[in-house]
């Protein structure tokens, strides 16, 4: 395997099976430095499992994943290579925040100065000496981020970092992630908040049922998935629906005078309507959102779907 310059995280054929369940199924991707890469997918899509395999907590059933060219465990100073926030509960509840960070840092010879720095950076000064058991979810996340930043790592792997944070905290994490990426670091973060992803990530890897559904820049994913929908309002809806009908075009109707057309552009529909003398009241190309794109991409890949049957 040639070492690719600029690739920080590289997963090749990565799989994790639990009995017959394929939590992660033959996943291959790279994560580049200098940008925020979002890991997106419904619950049970395999995001957390993949992240756990990156730092060697879970052993892959097949394939491998490297960070900066080596398996995580092969690094001499793993905490200086990768900072990881997997869940905020990787802390002994009976220990104070400062002792937790001192204990983790001590393994790498990271001393009190750096511990105080990350405590200040994550805004934990007022609770640093309190036992972690009494922390709110948000404070737990901040402590998890403090631990991830302890080794000043070139790569950060953050699983749901904004989970449980207040709005101010969410903005803070977003700015922190963007700032760290701008410094040239590699940031891989997962979130179930699509709007969050749209504002934070440059590049998105979408997982569904353990497989990669999409792997592209944010803008591409939005454009590709929803760029061709056009909303048409006309009193002659039934006739227009017949006129546009073709194998490449899908038409959905939610009101008697409203059509949503996929597969034709707004100009094509407008010209067709003018030719056939169909009156149009509205002709609007739909601006796709990441949320729409995501729902569309993962529609077939949701493991735990809320059922509307029988209503």
């Amino acid at each position, binding site marked *: 395997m040639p070492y690719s310059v600029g690739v920080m995280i590289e997963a090749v054929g990565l799989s994790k099976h639990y009995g017959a369940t394929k939590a992660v199924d033959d996943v291959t991707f790279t994560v580049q430095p200098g940008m925020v890469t979002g890991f997106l997918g419904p619950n049970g899509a395999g995001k957390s499992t993949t992240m756990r395999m990156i730092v060697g*907590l879970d052993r892959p059933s097949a394939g491998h994943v490297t960070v900066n060219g080596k398996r995580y465990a092969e690094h001499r100073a793993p905490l*200086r290579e990768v900072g990881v926030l997997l869940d905020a509960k990787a802390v002994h509840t009976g220990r104070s925040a400062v002792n*937790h960070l001192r*204990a983790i*840092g001590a393994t*790498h*010879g990271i001393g009190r100065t750096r511990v105080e720095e990350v405590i200040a950076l994550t805004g934990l000064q007022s609770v640093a000496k309190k036992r972690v058991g009494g922390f709110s979810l948000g404070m737990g996340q901040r402590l998890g981020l403090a631990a991830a930043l302890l080794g000043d790592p070139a790569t950060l792997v953050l699983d749901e970092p904004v989970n449980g944070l207040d709005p101010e905290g969410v903005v803070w994490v977003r700015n922190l992630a963007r700032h760290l990426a701008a410094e040239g670091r590699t940031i891989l973060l997962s979130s179930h908040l699509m709007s969050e992803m749209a504002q934070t990530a440059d590049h998105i890897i979408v997982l569904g049922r353990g497989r990669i559904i999409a792997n592209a820049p944010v803008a591409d994913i939005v454009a590709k998935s929803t760029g061709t929908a056009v909303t048409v309002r006309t009193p002659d809806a039934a006739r227009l629906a017949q006129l546009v009908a073709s194998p490449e075009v899908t038409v959905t109707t939610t009101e008697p005078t409203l059509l949503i057309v996929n597969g034709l552009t707004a100009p094509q529909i407008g010209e067709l309507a003018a030719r056939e003398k169909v009156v149009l009241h509205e002709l609007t190309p739909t601006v796709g959102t990441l949320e729409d794109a995501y729902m569309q991409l993962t529609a077939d890949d949701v493991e735990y779907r809320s059922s509307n049957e029988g209503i």
Partner: protein
Amino acid sequence: MTTIAPAPLSGVSFSGILRSEWIKLMSLRSTIWCYGILVFLTISLGLLFGVSIGIDGAALDRDTAQTLAVQAATVSVSFSQLVIAVLGALVITGEYGTGMIRSTLTAVPTRLPALFGKVVVFGATTFVISLVAIVVSALMSAPLLAGNGIEADLTDPGYWAALVGAAGSLTLIGVFATAVGTIVRNSAGAIAAVLGTILVLPTIMQIFAAITAAEWVVNLGAFLPSNAGSRMYAYVSDAPAMDPFGIGGLVLEPWQGALVLAAWVAGLLVLASVLLKRRDA
């Protein structure tokens, strides 16, 4: 492509891991409670033994006097080993219960140094604290015994060997529990398994020995961890006292007891290491 210039910074080292485990051990209340109870039990039971045991009339032979003096300092061990067993299990199962283990294993992804560091720090701390407590208990109970007509010879190396053996036995029982905790990964389960092995198994074996009067049952019982451990702080000449049912059978020498218990600990640590290395965390 922008890259972060790696500064010449320190990596994982075993001394760093030892320091980390020391911070972990000393920053939890359960540690302070367990060691506090150990020291209190050791000294208070030694004093109680010192004031309550005495002889009337004829002077004791030297071996009996030495045996009683050792017992005064170590009478607490059968209780304090339960406390140390609980603490020994908690130092690892507390990490599994809270999720701390994931922080530990991401900091030390080769895993085994983290377990060995924990064992070294916990074992050394337990040995030093229990040895100090036992020696203090010995020095306080000896004058009390002397006042009751039991004159111990404190220049006897066998006497001190027994005291060191008691601290060693406590340490090995503690590490035994840490190994079981690493295998079981659950506080309640590990504590139940270890206390079952220390408390219940010897009693069952004793009942079995009394019923069957079979020598092989006694011999087998001698190899149980707590029975082997208790031989580590037996004063060398008190061997006949260990034959309550008159069946005869094997009585381990203190060093043999130490080897048997150490073998238990080593075997379980090997199993714990294999499982720690292999399992997902």
